[in-house]
């Protein structure tokens, strides 16, 4: 078999978790010990301690783990961390910080767009990505574009309000 050198992360390594890869997260290069089985979600939470990204279903059904890869939203629970070397990864922590919130984060706060808050970081990551997507202006358009983010508390009406408010504010700039 072709020797793929550094292209391989092998499971027969005596210390299976030994290989390190460099991931670019929120603008910073981070060296991580990687197991090929590790999803980006687990890597962010358990290795890099960026716990803003949440694990809901772990099967790409709920959207709680939504992050941005190269500017587009994806479910981090279905992405293998080692396959994303070289990609630009952005999590909720990279969006804004207390005192300097992203306008979408501020809109969620202002509109009380959550109850328990567990799905909120995923909702916001989707909502921020939506700003760059060909989403129509109606509430129904927003509902369709946000259907990959489930809220078990049912905060949907205020989530839609928050997104529409942030869109109007950002358009008015």
């Amino acid at each position, binding site marked *: 078999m*072709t020797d793929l050198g550094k292209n391989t992360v092998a499971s027969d390594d005596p210390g299976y978790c030994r290989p390190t890869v460099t991931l670019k997260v929120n603008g910073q290069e981070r060296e991580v010990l990687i197991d090929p089985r590790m999803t980006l979600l687990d890597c962010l939470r358990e290795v890099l301690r960026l716990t803003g990204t949440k694990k809901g279903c772990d099967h790409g059904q709920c959207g709680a783990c939504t992050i941005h890869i190269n500017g587009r939203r994806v479910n981090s629970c279905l992405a293998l961390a080692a*396959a994303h070397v070289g990609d630009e990864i952005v999590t909720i922590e990279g969006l804004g910080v207390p005192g300097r919130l992203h306008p979408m984060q501020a809109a969620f706060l202002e509109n009380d767009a959550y109850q328990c808050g567990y799905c909120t970081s995923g909702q916001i990551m989707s909502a921020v990505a939506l700003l760059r997507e060909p989403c129509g202006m109606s509430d129904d358009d927003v509902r369709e574009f946000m259907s990959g983010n489930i809220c078990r508390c049912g905060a949907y009406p205020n989530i839609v309000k928050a997104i529409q408010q942030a869109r109007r504010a950002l358009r008015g700039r």
Partner: protein
Amino acid sequence: MQPFDLVRAPDRRTAVAEGATSHTAQQGASVRFLAGGTTLVDLMKLGVERPGRVVDINRLGLDDIHKQANGDLFIGATARNSDLAHHPLVRGSYSALSQAILAGASTQLRNAATTAGNLLQRTRCMYFRDLASACNKRAPGSGCPAIAGTNRMLAILGTSEACIATNPSDMAVAMMVYDAVVHVQGVAGDRQVPLMDFYVLPGERPDIENVLEAGDLVTHVTLSSPSTGERSTYLKLRDRASYEFALVSAAVAIRLTNDGAIASARFALGGIGTRPWRVTEAERELVGQAPSDKAFRNAAEICLEEARPQSQNGFKIELARRCIVHAFKQISQ
């Protein structure tokens, strides 16, 4: 998840050689190509897929979408579903395809999922996904609890005594009506397989789902160029308004003559077959007729002639008839 080696393939030839070390490209393959991961990683977590080696094919430059010199649309194997659905050429000339993709999954999933991955996605039959259940598709010979069990979402066409699992793709249904051809690079060279011949009916071996052999790498799909004046649409009927698999769906395309008769018509159904379902005899019945409920319903009857309902999904037969009629009416008025 079972341990595996993760390899980033430097070129297609290496990917093919890696794939060929497996004994099969079907259920039980020891090597899997990784594109978007939305099906594969999910099934690896469940233990349904247990490859010892995973070959990342995301950096092989297989993601282009363009119009070929002969007018056909070239769709790269790793083009993302979002990119395909929103591509100007697709929105302009292949409406049913754009609509079908956008009717499936969520934006997050479509941003990761790819052309070839969508074609090869596995059934959502709950018994297939549950290792505690028997399933002839996952564990050949173990039985099919769906036949006497929960089968409301499952197939009424192309089923066998061994399997009634539905093919869940929306994209593939639309591709059927555009005469899609799947281009494959294999150990013995390149070959082309019409999508109509790509999927295999379950028969006694539901673990075999398509014609791919070990090492076969889908490189791209081509769609024939639609004739001038043709209209197409995709109608998906489901339990929720968004983010749900089809109970029944229909991709339809029609072209009318100047005096309003049907010059050509094509349609395919999703959500009701063990593969995307297209019956060309039913389409030929429509040619020369005036577009009417009666004509479309007659074509639907022909398409559904061999339908065999299970205990919970008999409603799909009438739903499919109405879906076909309604979709055709939408674009022929």
